[in-house]
């Protein structure tokens, strides 16, 4: 097994030797060897195909003299042909060597040979005479016949597995761990075969024998990959079972989700929500704290590596929401307590933050926000637990999970009373600068306070002009070296424009000034978020809606 990791991916000679070896020995062990190497073989065939695509036959044979032999041998190997992907790539490679207009003797010969090979591969299965008349008398096609044979074999294996796995303590198991392992290896090429699906499920649900994993890791990997590519479908419990026993499959699903979200920045909130729910991660996380920890760790790492990239934050917030819902509304057997999922955060903070804004009436929001700020301050400034660097980070990270509240805070800020404003400002500043080592938070707080005060004065005035905002805008500009601060100020201004009495008139120009024509994406995303909040929280603010639409259209035209 150690040998596998040191093989260079592209090594024709290695595979040629392998193919000879497989062809000569028809023992069970050699066939298993094929299955174990299947994924690597598929990668290799794909590489060869990429190279052969751009060569004509003579050049191909000159560069890779052994390739014809290799492909030929592989065609006769059932383990290679049974897998859909490898069969397809094999055919494509063979076709690369076929010349539509042969130029020389070599090409002619190659054509003949390839024709016979492909005929064997394809048409013989349809025209074999052995079973044909029998099948046709009954009124079946040869496809149905072969499909039924496979189903029959699958069902007898499944019956044996079921009987063997769920037995009492005293009955001897028919399926020894060795045999189970070997069976799983043989199922590697059959993972995407529709008729073999019951067998795959039965293998995955077979009771664990206790000491270590009996199923082959390559098999589990193949199932994980097929699931991700949506080539097979399995029941939810089976999928979650797979994640629990083979961690890389869970990691791949999480990474795939993140990649999809990051590479398609124009997802609507509903689309993102359904994407998250379809991945099954929230449900799985709600049932198994272990899974939640792993997914959360991956999110954290990506967030930190990407320097707090906005889409990742949004993804985390939506994931947390789905996760909490799954936790609340999932089946009631053995629900783990919140502490199991968030061991480093104090319970009061968890209770305050994990309640989603849509579950709290909007009149209660100011009080709830105050509660959040107070508990957060206690947690963060507590010298024993939260004061430490670790505690600070954990609590800030929890806040990121529940970032919806931060957005609400920004929305409420301008219209709030003096005592509340201070708290809300602190929350916003903390969100963008959790670390106050160099007094960045304090500085930001000071500036933000000034801007906020200024905006509050202008809030109810119905006749506004751009010049009124100029001082605040300049002040914000001067203190926006870091993207976090800039984001915060943009939030403040945008909320002001949407909800103030006279904001609509100057909205377009103000936005233009705020962004100097750049960073429109950031503003668009903020607007999308605001729209989502207005729609989901049932706030009947027609004026705000109108201003929002105005800005969105303006930005669309600019883009």
């Amino acid at each position, binding site marked *: 097994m150690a040998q596998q990791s040191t093989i260079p991916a592209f090594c024709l000679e290695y595979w040629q030797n392998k193919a000879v070896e497989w062809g000569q020995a028809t023992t069970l062990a050699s066939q298993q060897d094929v299955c174990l190497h299947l994924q690597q073989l598929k990668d290799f065939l794909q590489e060869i195909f990429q190279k052969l695509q751009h060569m004509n036959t003579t050049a191909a044979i000159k560069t890779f003299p052994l390739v014809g032999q290799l492909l030929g041998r592989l065609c006769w190997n059932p383990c290679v042909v049974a897998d859909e992907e490898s069969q397809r790539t094999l055919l494509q490679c063979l076709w690369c060597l076929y010349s539509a207009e042969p130029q020389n003797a070599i090409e002619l010969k190659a054509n003949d040979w390839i024709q016979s090979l492909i005929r064997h591969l394809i048409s013989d299965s349809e025209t074999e005479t052995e079973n044909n*008349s029998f099948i046709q008398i009954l009124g079946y096609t040869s496809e149905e016949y072969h499909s*039924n044979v496979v189903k029959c*074999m699958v069902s007898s294996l499944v019956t044996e597995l079921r009987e063997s796995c769920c037995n009492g303590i005293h009955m001897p198991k028919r399926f020894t761990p060795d045999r189970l392992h*070997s069976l799983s290896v043989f199922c590697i090429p059959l993972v995407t075969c529709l008729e073999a699906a019951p067998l795959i499920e039965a293998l995955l649900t077979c009771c664990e024998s206790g000491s270590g994993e009996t199923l082959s890791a390559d098999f589990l990997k193949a199932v994980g990959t097929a699931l991700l590519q949506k080539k097979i479908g399995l029941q939810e419990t089976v999928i979650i079972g797979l994640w629990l026993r083979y961690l890389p499959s869970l990691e791949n699903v999480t990474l795939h989700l993140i990649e999809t979200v990051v590479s398609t920045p124009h997802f609507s909130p509903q689309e993102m929500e359904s994407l998250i729910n379809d991945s099954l991660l929230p449900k799985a996380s709600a049932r198994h704290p272990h899974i939640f920890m792993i997914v959360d760790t991956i999110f954290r790492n990506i967030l930190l590596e990407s320097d707090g990239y906005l889409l990742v934050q949004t993804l985390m917030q939506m994931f947390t929401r789905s996760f909490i819902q799954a936790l609340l509304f999932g089946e009631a057997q053995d629900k783990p307590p919140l502490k199991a999922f968030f061991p480093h955060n104090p319970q009061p903070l968890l209770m305050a933050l994990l309640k989603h804004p849509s579950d709290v009436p909007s009149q209660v929001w100011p009080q709830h926000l105050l509660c959040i700020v107070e508990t957060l301050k206690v947690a963060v400034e507590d010298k024993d637990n939260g004061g430490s660097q670790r505690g600070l980070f954990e609590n800030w990270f929890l806040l990121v999970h529940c970032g919806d509240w931060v957005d609400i805070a920004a929305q409420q800020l301008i219209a709030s009373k003096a005592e509340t404003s201070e708290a809300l400002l602190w929350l916003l500043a903390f969100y963008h600068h959790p670390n106050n080592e160099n007094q960045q938070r304090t500085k930001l707080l000071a500036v933000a306070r000034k801007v906020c005060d200024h905006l509050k004065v202008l809030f109810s005035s119905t006749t506004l002009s751009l010049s009124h905002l100029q001082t605040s805008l300049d002040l914000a500009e001067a203190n926006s070296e870091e993207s976090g601060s800039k984001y915060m100020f943009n939030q403040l201004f945008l909320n002001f424009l949407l909800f103030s009495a006279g904001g609509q008139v100057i909205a377009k120009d103000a936005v233009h000034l705020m962004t100097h024509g750049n960073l429109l994406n950031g503003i668009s995303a903020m607007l999308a978020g605001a729209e989502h909040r207005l729609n989901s929280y049932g706030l009947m603010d027609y004026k705000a809606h109108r201003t929002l639409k105005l800005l969105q259209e303006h930005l669309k035209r600019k883009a």
Partner: protein
Amino acid sequence: MESILQNLNGMAELLAVARSEYVSHWDPETVQRAFQWATYFEHLHDRFRTNTRVHKALADRLLSINESLRNTFGLYRELSFKDVGHCRGVLLASLLSNPALPKTLSDTLFARLRPCCFDTTGQRDQSDLNHLIGIARLKAASKVLSHALKLDGSTGTKPYLLLLDPETETKGEMVLKSLETWMRCPSAGPRDKLVDSLFAQLQQDKINNSSDFSKIVAAVLLAKQTSTESGAVDLALKWLLSNRCQLQTFCLGVPCALLSELAHRYPAFRCAYLELLTKWARSMEYDFSCGDWRHGSSPELNWKELVDRFMYLLEGPTLVKEATETALCALKADDGDFEVWGISVWTDLLIALKKM
């Protein structure tokens, strides 16, 4: 409707010719027309797939077509209605495997097997290629699974599961299912005749390998998924037991363990089987020169076989075991209840069986 049936004739003939030496006269236009016809038939299939009345009419017509064409053409490939749905694939495969096809045509046709990604002319309907590829993949899958089945497993409590290979088992189930489908059809004739004709056809098909046919019948009787209302299995059993000679061939072609299982499931079979064995044993004569029991006319019905068969019955389930024991003892008593070797075949049988 009549025109469709006529066209069906044409299609069957087309596919038959495609496998014969007449293709040597074909040219590119003929090939193209042939594929156009095939596409038309695929549409036909799609249209009438759910209409059971038309479906049945077409299927019946095909049966008669099959019969007549089988006599005309040497290598005839029987057709079923479902084949019509894959007409192009069948046509393609038949032509490609026909050595009489001119090389240029063969090469052009071969190009149809090219996977789509190469096609600069955009997406082509590759259902014929996909159909053929799918079959090849299923065949390979069954080979891989047969490896998996061979993995060392301790003997289970159902030995017969291991005795019927998956192919035979599948064939048996398919026969049963077909039978049930045909029996449900309102226009089907008397059920006995249905079974008779079907089995006669299958027997004819396997004329060179009667043991294969017997195993298939055994698979039918042992099939796991039967709907008891249809009574198909009972009819099959009735058919088997109706003919002495047939039953004998059956019992000789099927492994003893399977027979024992059949005896367990079907009391009627148990009686018939025991009768057969009794008759067989009775016709044995003791050969003094070599001290062995022999059958006068058929040397293959030897002593060892007889003993083996009784042994399997005695090792079988309780009911079977008891019935056999009772029968043997009764026969021994009838014969005079001797304890000495060489006089009564029953005594000797019991002695030999006790030794094992």
